[in-house]
Structures are given as structure tokens and as C-alpha cells.
């Protein structure tokens, strides 16, 4: 059964008449299996009872239970929903309105907001927020992904913004080390901020590197089969003409062509991407470690005129390297980055987009005092709640140094083929230039 509060439909996947191709199990079968085993081990028969209907027609017992306890599904019968789904007819989630406007009841003052006062609150009196200078709405620079001094509260002096300073925690104000900069409270105005530098700029780091989710995939769906993954970005080649390719597709970083040229990087070249060496790719690494090459990110650079200068991007959804995938690349005849032991297939030769990023533990995301809506239902929760009040920070961003690793062309070709032939931005051949201007037809 599939439904969510943002999707107007609830649908039960109709049962397939086909046998399973592999020995796979549904979630409920896994839970039931574990529970059965525990029942035996513990001599607790209720653990078996609980899941006794978990296979075949019996699953409807559990589905119906979910429906009966869901405000917006109550009234449906799971068997009917399955029958309808077989005919391709979905059912509507019966939220208050169709389509659903979020917080309609609160906006109309029928119900209270999920806050302490029941009203929208724009001041946070909790001590953690006052100590962080976030009791009022303020803007903070990111902890890492900025060319300027990180994590600065950008504001004019205001009597109500009185955060604890670095010295209050026994730190020097100039301490911008990787752990301390995430909790540092320093206030600067916008113009003053623009005169500052990220400490890594001294180490030739130049780019904010962000790793958002791919626009056409949820989780790994875009790389689960070869036929979908060859469409993931511009480097997919089902025949792997270039045997360096880890898979039929490979990870890449979008970078503004002018930036790349300044770094001596051509379109399609392989580059290393290094974030703060204090803790990435991992704490205490030594370049001579065996594991260092597994963890350090190397991927293709792709000229992308749509990203502003100073910003680089890698989509989030490709499988990263493991010790096994790097080993596979070295010992397999076909050179695939596939673990000889497990067959795990990486889409990177070395490292992954996550080599450069980490979680930032901002105090105001980890309080025990903030109240908020509970995960389910209309109740009020307090403190930690997954996906609601917990560190989210900016785990997908970093400030990085980019250096050329290998040339993009293969078999004695220096340049990546589409660039060499003049079909890429800044490499246009004469025909391409005419074509871009639309000059092959004239009036």
C-alpha cells in the first residue's frame, strides 16, 4: 500500500500472478520471520501470534488495521482497494480538502498551530536559542559551504541578539577549526562578512560543493539498472568504450566552464575533490593509507554553464566506492568497479560525493525543549523527533579544492570525445557555432 500526505492518491499494488524471480521477501515477511525466530528463542508465543497472518490473503488484516487507524483513509476496505488497483483505479486520500492545502485548519483558525502558544511564533525563548543568537530570525552563513567566514550570524547589532561568544566556551575568536566552527557564535554585518575568507581559501580551496538529490530519482532508483543509469548525466555509455569507467555510468561534478579553465581542468577530465583535510575524507587519514584512495573522491568534471562561478555540484544518488569496488577495478579483467566478493557495483572509481561532506551538529537542532507537532496525529512532541527536530544542518555541502587527476580522453586522446569534436560548451566547432545561433536557415 502506498500513500503519503503530499500525494492525493492511496494505492495498493495489486498482487502479481508471476513468481518472484529472486528469493526476495516483503518487509512484512522479514518482520514476521524475525519475530517467529525470537518467539522460538524466547519461548514467547505472542510474538508468533502477532504476525500469523503475514503471508497470502492474511496481509489484508494488517493493511486494514493501518487504514482503520488513519484519519484520512478510514472508511476504505483494503480488499476493495486492491481490486480497484487491478483495474488501474486509484483511491483518493480523504484529507480535508482536495487538493490538500497544508495547514488549512490553522490558517483558518479552526485549530491551533503546533507550538507552545498555539499561535505562529517568531521569537524563541528557549535558552539554547538565546545562547546561539537564534532567538530572533537571523541568517547564518553555512558552516562550510561558503567562500566567507563560516557560520557567521549576519545581522546588525541588536540588543535582543546576545549569543554566547567563543570566549564564553573557552575558545579563541579566531578558532575556525572544523569542529569549533559549527558552534561558534560571531555576529557580523553583511559588508563586514564580505571582507572575510573561509580559512580553507589559504589552502587553495575555491568551490562551494553541493550534492543535492538527482531530479529524476528517489534514492537509488536512477542507478538500479544499467538502462536507467546510462541516462544519469552525460557520461553514460552502455558499452564502456573507455575502460576506466567504473560502471556503464559514472559520477561527475558540474562546474562552470570559466572556473574549470582557470583550474586547468578540461571538460570530461577526471578531478580530485578535497574538502577540509582536518576530517575528510576521514579523520586522521594519511596519504599513504591503503584506504585513502578508496575514500578520496575522484570523478569526472563536466562543463556546466548553468552553475554560477564558485559553485560546483554532484547529484547525490550514485553508489559510492568501497574497498571491494576499488579492488574489483584493479583485478577484474573488464575493469568494472564491482566487488569480487559481493558484486556490489560502484559508480565511482574512487570515493563518492559523500567523501566531501559531513553532518553539522547545530545546537538549535538538538534541543530537549523545543515543542513541535508529533510525527503522527495531532499531538505535540518535545525535543528529539526524527525528521522533525534533529540535526539536518547541511550534510550535503562543503568547501573544496579541485585538482586535475587524469585527462578525459582515452586511447591517446587528450580531450573527452564530445569536447574534442566540438560539441561542448567553449569547444564549439564552426558548425556548432552556426547551429547555436540558428543561422542554418535565413529569411
Amino acid at each position: 500500500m502506498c500513500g503519503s500526505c503530499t500525494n492525493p492518491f492511496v494505492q495498493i499494488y495489486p498482487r502479481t500472478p508471476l513468481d518472484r524471480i529472486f528469493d526476495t521477501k516483503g518487509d512484512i515477511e522479514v518482520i514476521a520471520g524475525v519475530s517467529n525466530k525470537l518467539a522460538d528463542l524466547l519461548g514467547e508465543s505472542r510474538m508468533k501470534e502477532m504476525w500469523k497472518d503475514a503471508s497470502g490473503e492474511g496481509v489484508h488484516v494488517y493493511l486494514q488495521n493501518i487504514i482503520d487507524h488513519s484519519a484520512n483513509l478510514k472508511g476504505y476496505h483494503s480488499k476493495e482497494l486492491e481490486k480497484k488497483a487491478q483495474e488501474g483505479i486509484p483511491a483518493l486520500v480523504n484529507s480535508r480538502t482536495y487538493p490538500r492545502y497544508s495547514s488549512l485548519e490553522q490558517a483558518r483558525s479552526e485549530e491551533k498551530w503546533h507550538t507552545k502558544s498555539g499561535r505562529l511564533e517568531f521569537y524563541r525563548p528557549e535558552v539554547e536559542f538565546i545562547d546561539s543568537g537564534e532567538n530572533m530570525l537571523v541568517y547564518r552563513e553555512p558552516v562550510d559551504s561558503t567562500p566567507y567566514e563560516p557560520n557567521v550570524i549576519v545581522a546588525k547589532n541588536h540588543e535582543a541578539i546576545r549569543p554566547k561568544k567563543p570566549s564564553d566556551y573557552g575558545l579563541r575568536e579566531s578558532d575556525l577549526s572544523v569542529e569549533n566552527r559549527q558552534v561558534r557564535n560571531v555576529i557580523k554585518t553583511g559588508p563586514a562578512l564580505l571582507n572575510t575568507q573561509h580559512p580553507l581559501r589559504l589552502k587553495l580551496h575555491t568551490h562551494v560543493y553541493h550534492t543535492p538529490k538527482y531530479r529524476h530519482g528517489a534514492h537509488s532508483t536512477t542507478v538500479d539498472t544499467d538502462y536507467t543509469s546510462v541516462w544519469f548525466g552525460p557520461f553514460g555509455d552502455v558499452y564502456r568504450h573507455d575502460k576506466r569507467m567504473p560502471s556503464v555510468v559514472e559520477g561527475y561534478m558540474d562546474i562552470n566552464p570559466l572556473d574549470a579553465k582557470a583550474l586547468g581542468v578540461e571538460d570530461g577530465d577526471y578531478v580530485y575533490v578535497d574538502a577540509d583535510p582536518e576530517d575528510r575524507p576521514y579523520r586522521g587519514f594519511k596519504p599513504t593509507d591503503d584506504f585513502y584512495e578508496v575514500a578520496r573522491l575522484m570523478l569526472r568534471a563536466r562543463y556546466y554553464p548553468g552553475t554560477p562561478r564558485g559553485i560546483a555540484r554532484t547529484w547525490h544518488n550514485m553508489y559510492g566506492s568501497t574497498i571491494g569496488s576499488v579492488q574489483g577495478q584493479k583485478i577484474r579483467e573488464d575493469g568494472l568497479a564491482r566487488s569480487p566478493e559481493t558484486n556490489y557495483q560502484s559508480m565511482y572509481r574512487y570515493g563518492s560525493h559523500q567523501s566531501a561532506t559531513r553532518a553539522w551538529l547545530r545546537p538549535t537542532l538538538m534541543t530537549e525543549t523545543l515543542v513541535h507537532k508529533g510525527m503522527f496525529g495531532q499531538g505535540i512532541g518535545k525535543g528529539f523527533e526524527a525528521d522533525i527536530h534533529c540535526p539536518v544542518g547541511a550534510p550535503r555541502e562543503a568547501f573544496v579544492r579541485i585538482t586535475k587527476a587524469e585527462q578525459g580522453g582515452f586511447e591517446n586522446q587528450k580531450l573527452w570525445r564530445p569536447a574534442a569534436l566540438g560539441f561542448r560548451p567553449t569547444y564549439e566547432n564552426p558548425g556548432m557555432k552556426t547551429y547555436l545561433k540558428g543561422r542554418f536557415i535565413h529569411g
Partner: protein
Amino acid sequence: MAKVKNWHLGRDMEYVYEENRPKRQWSIVFDLNKCIGCQTCSMACKTTWTSGKGQESMFWNNVETKPWGSYPLGWDVKVLEKLGHQEWKKHEPYRGKTIFEAAEPTETTVHFFPTDEDWMYPNNGEDDCTGNVSHGTHLNLPHDQWFFYLPRTCAHCTYPACLAACPRKAIYKRPEDGIVLIDQSRCKGYGECVRSCPYKKSMYNPYTRTSEKCIGCYPAVEQGYQPMCVQNCIGKIRVMGFINPPWKARKDNPVDYLVHQMGLALPYYPQLGLEPNIYYIPPIHANREYLTQMFGPKVDDAIKQYKKIKDDPRTQGLLVLLGSTDRIMHSFDVKHGVAYGYDEKGDEIVSVPVIEHSYERPRYDSKYEAVRNNTP
């Protein structure tokens, strides 16, 4: 060479065979303003037709980002370059040469053969915009920097270059629906069709050693269903139907309406002279010279028409029928805010409200004892 009528060009042209229009002509219209480049269509075709040996890099349906994307590499740049600069004035017949007319005396068409390497990187150029985005950039119409997605199938051309070039006459155009097929038992894999099709929609299979191409999903079409790439389109940007030439156009035929009645949908690269039967509602944000090169000088009028749709419930109705039924619509109507699609016999197969209504449910449903809530 025979003289044939090509209404895309507004003039007669030379073709290898006599004009022989099918009883009806398979056709797809795409609204490029709505394509999101998701490649669901490419996967629908791939998983249905080309998962076999030798077909690994074959995508009969592909979607490329224009202007940087191309599959195979640089196909349209190369064809236009071979054909050279040509003239086409607004509201006038095409003055330039087609690929048949510009061919060397011993050849059928102006052509090139893509190499094996040209077929790798099917999504080369994805999302690349025309030029550098700098700080302070904002949106205008048309956009300063732009790109759009171009989904492509075989165009089941009225004057197919693939068919014209085949020395074994292995390619034929079906009289009942205009679908162009390669007879696999006759094909010897010379690749003349691959070389000559300017759209590069005939592809060589090194395993079977024959050429293969989009079959228009004829088994579905024969049963009154739209092709897989149309049925599965997430953006609901496509409709497959049967197009009539302008002198036989019917106002209630969805394809005729969009192409002939409204002038909203245009053939792509009509100057090549094949009378291709896939039609595009051009993207209004892209550069006009580029669009003219791709869709001909009628593009200005098509965009003007497009901007009027907001005041035109009938066209709105037809556009909401796109992607609302798997069946082939032979006619449509829009009455009292509802759009209807009909099959060949005139029976209703689908109805859709032109404007989607909002509903509000009672806060407490006493029948089911349920509280309905918008913030669950």
C-alpha cells in the same frame, strides 16, 4: 525522380517514388513546454522493444536537451551543415533545397553515417543551457540562457529517406496507418537507411546484422491503443493519433486540430523534405532564430497562438486530454467545462474536467467516525 507534394514546404519536391499517401497517417504531437526530460518514454520503449542482444545502446525513443544534447552525437548539426545555409522566408514556400534535392547525382540524399562511438553518451548535454549564467541573472521571455527537452521517435515520414535509400527495398510504409517498417527478413544490414535518415532513427544492430527502428508500436495501434512511449509519458505532453493532410483536415480530430486548425504544432526540421509526422508545440522561452531553424518560419505564429490558450477553453480541453487515456482518440469535443475523447466509432473513451475542481470535506465524517485533516 518523381514530383511529389510536400505541404510542410508549401511546394512540390523531388522524391525517389511517386506520391502515395497512406489511408491514414500515424502521428504524435508533443507539447515541448511541458516535457521534463524524465526519460520515462525512453525506458517504456526500451523495456518493450529493445532489450535484446545488439540493441544495448539503441533507444528508438530518446529525449535530448537542446541545443547541447544529441543522440547520436551532433546528428542535427551535421545534417544541417551538410545541407548548408538555406533560405525560407516567412509566409512563403521553402526556397532552399531538401536533402533529396541537394544530393550528389549518384546519391539519394545528403547524408552521413554515425560511428559506433557517436551512439555512446545518450544523455550528453543534459540540462546544459546555452551560455554562462552570471550573478544577477533573471528571467525574461524568451530567456537569455535557455534549453529545452526534445523527445524523439521515428517520424514515420511521408517521404522516408530510409525507405528511399534502401537498395533491397526492405523498407515499406504501411498503407493502413503510414507506419514505416524494416522487413527483417529482407534487410541485409547495408546500413543505407542509417546513413540516409537525417533524424538518425534507423539504427544498426551488430548482433543480428540488420537495421532496426521504431515500429510505431503497431501491435498496440492496430488494437486502438497509443504507443508505449505515449501512454507512459509522465508529463502528459503527448498524444498519438492520425493526421490528415491539410486539404482533408477535420476540426474534431485532435492531431488535425493542433496542427492545422490552430497552427500550434509544427514538424521538426521540415526543410529536410521528409514530411515527418511527429509534431511539436514549440517551447516559448527559447531563442526564436534557433526555433526557426528547427521548426521553420511558422514558429512565430505558433507561439502567438500558444499564448492565447489561456482564453481558449476548447484548446485547453484538448491539452488536458493528452495523457488522460491509453486509447487512440479519433475525435474530441469540449462541452460545459468537460473535455471528451472518442474512439473510431464515436464512442466516448475518456472525459476530463478542463479545470480541476477543489473539494472540501466535512471536518468530521460521522458515517466512518473519522476526522479529516490537512496536517495529518
